[in-house]
C-alpha cells in the first residue's frame, strides 16, 4: 500500500478541517413538515376544502389514511437514508405501500363488477386531482431531495424511489382534503396514479443527482 501518499492525504484532509454542524433528522423533519403544510395551505387557499371533511365517507377516509401512511413511511425512510449506517433498515415504506395496493385492487374489482364500466367511472372522475397531487408534493419532494443531496444515501436508486413516493403520496393526501369525489376508481386512478408517477419519476430522474 502506498502509505506515503495516504499519509499525505490524511495531512491534507486534517489541514482542511473546519467545524461542521451534524445533520439532524429532527431538523430535516421540520423542513419536510413545512413543505407539507405550505402545500396544504396553498391548495386550500386557492381551491378550498371539501365541504364534508369532518363527515367524510368511510371509503374516502380510509383512502386518505392509507395514502398518508405511505407518505409518512416513505418520508421517514428517506430521512433515515441521509445518515448512513450498515445494518440500518430503510424498508418500512414497503409494508405501507403493500397495504395501499388495496386501493387499486378494490378499484379493479369494482370496475370489473359491472356496476358501471371503469372507463365511465374514470371519465366521471375527470377532475384535476392528478396534476394537483403532483404539484402539492413538490414541497415535500424538494425538502427530501435537499436533505439527501447533502447527506450520504448509500443506495441512490432506493433514495430516488422513496423521495418520489413520499412526494407523490403527500401530494395525494393534500389533494384528498379538497377533492369532493368518493369514487374508489377515481381515487385509485388519479390520486394513486399521481403517487405511482411521482415514485417512478423519482427513481428515473434522481439517482444520478444523489450519487456522491
Amino acid at each position, binding site marked *: 500500500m502506498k502509505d506515503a501518499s495516504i499519509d499525505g492525504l490524511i495531512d491534507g484532509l486534517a489541514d482542511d478541517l473546519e467545524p461542521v454542524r451534524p445533520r439532524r433528522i429532527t431538523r430535516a423533519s421540520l423542513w419536510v413538515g413545512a413543505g407539507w403544510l405550505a402545500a396544504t395551505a396553498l391548495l386550500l387557499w386557492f381551491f378550498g376544502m371539501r365541504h364534508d371533511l369532518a363527515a367524510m365517507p368511510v371509503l374516502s377516509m380510509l383512502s386518505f389514511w392509507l395514502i398518508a401512511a405511505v407518505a409518512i413511511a416513505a418520508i421517514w425512510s428517506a430521512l433515515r437514508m441521509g445518515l448512513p449506517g450498515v445494518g440500518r433498515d430503510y424498508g418500512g415504506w414497503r409494508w405501507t405501500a403493500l397495504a395501499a395496493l388495496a386501493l387499486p385492487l378494490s378499484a379493479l374489482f369494482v370496475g370489473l363488477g359491472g356496476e358501471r364500466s371503469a372507463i365511465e367511472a374514470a371519465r366521471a372522475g375527470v377532475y384535476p386531482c392528478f396534476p394537483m397531487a403532483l404539484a402539492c408534493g413538490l414541497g415535500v419532494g424538494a425538502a427530501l431531495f435537499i436533505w439527501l443531496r447533502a*447527506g450520504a444515501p*448509500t443506495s441512490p436508486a432506493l433514495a430516488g424511489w422513496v423521495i418520489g413516493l413520499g412526494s407523490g403520496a403527500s401530494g395525494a393526501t393534500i389533494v384528498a382534503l379538497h377533492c369532493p369525489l368518493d369514487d374508489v376508481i377515481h381515487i385509485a386512478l388519479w390520486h394513486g396514479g399521481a403517487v405511482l408517477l411521482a415514485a417512478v419519476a423519482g427513481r428515473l430522474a434522481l439517482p444520478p443527482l444523489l450519487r456522491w
Partner: protein
Amino acid sequence: MSLDEPSVARLMAASQRGDRAAYRALLGDCHTWLGRYFARRCATYQIDDLVQETLVSLHRKRATWDSGRPFLPWLAAIARYRWIDMLRRQRNEIELGEGDVAIGAQDEAVHARLSLDRLLALLPAGQAQAITLVKIGGASIAEASRISGQSESLVKVNIHRGLKRLAGLVESE
C-alpha cells in the same frame, strides 16, 4: 488492529467540532481499519485507491455522522458505498471495452477472495468464472476467453452482468 468504538466516536465528535489533531488520529485509525476491510473484499491493487476514496468521502460527509449512533457502522456504510461504486465503474469499463488490460495478480489477491468467494458462489458459474479470471486473477479478456472456453464477448457480458448482480448483493448485505 481493531478499533475501539468509544475512542473513535470521541475522536469523530471532536473532529466535527474542528479539532485537527483528533481528526488526524481518527483518519490514521480509519486508514488501518479500511485497509483490512477492503483486503477481505477486493484485489490488492484496488485497496489503496479505495482507502483513499473512502477517506475523502468520510471528510466530505463527516456531518452525516450522528454522535448518538456508533461510528464504525457509519464508516462501514461509506466504505461499502465506495466499494459498490468501484464495482459499477468496472462494469462500465467493460461496456466501453477498457477491461482488456491485464493486471498482474499478486499473492495477496488470494486473501481478497476469502469473502468474495461467498458472494461469487451466488452468481451463475459463467459470471463467477469470468470475474474471477479477469477482475481477481488479472487475466486479459482474451486469456479469460481461452481458459474458460467462453467467447470474448461472452466474457465481457458475464463480467458486466456479474458485477451488476454483485453490486446488488453487496447493497442488500
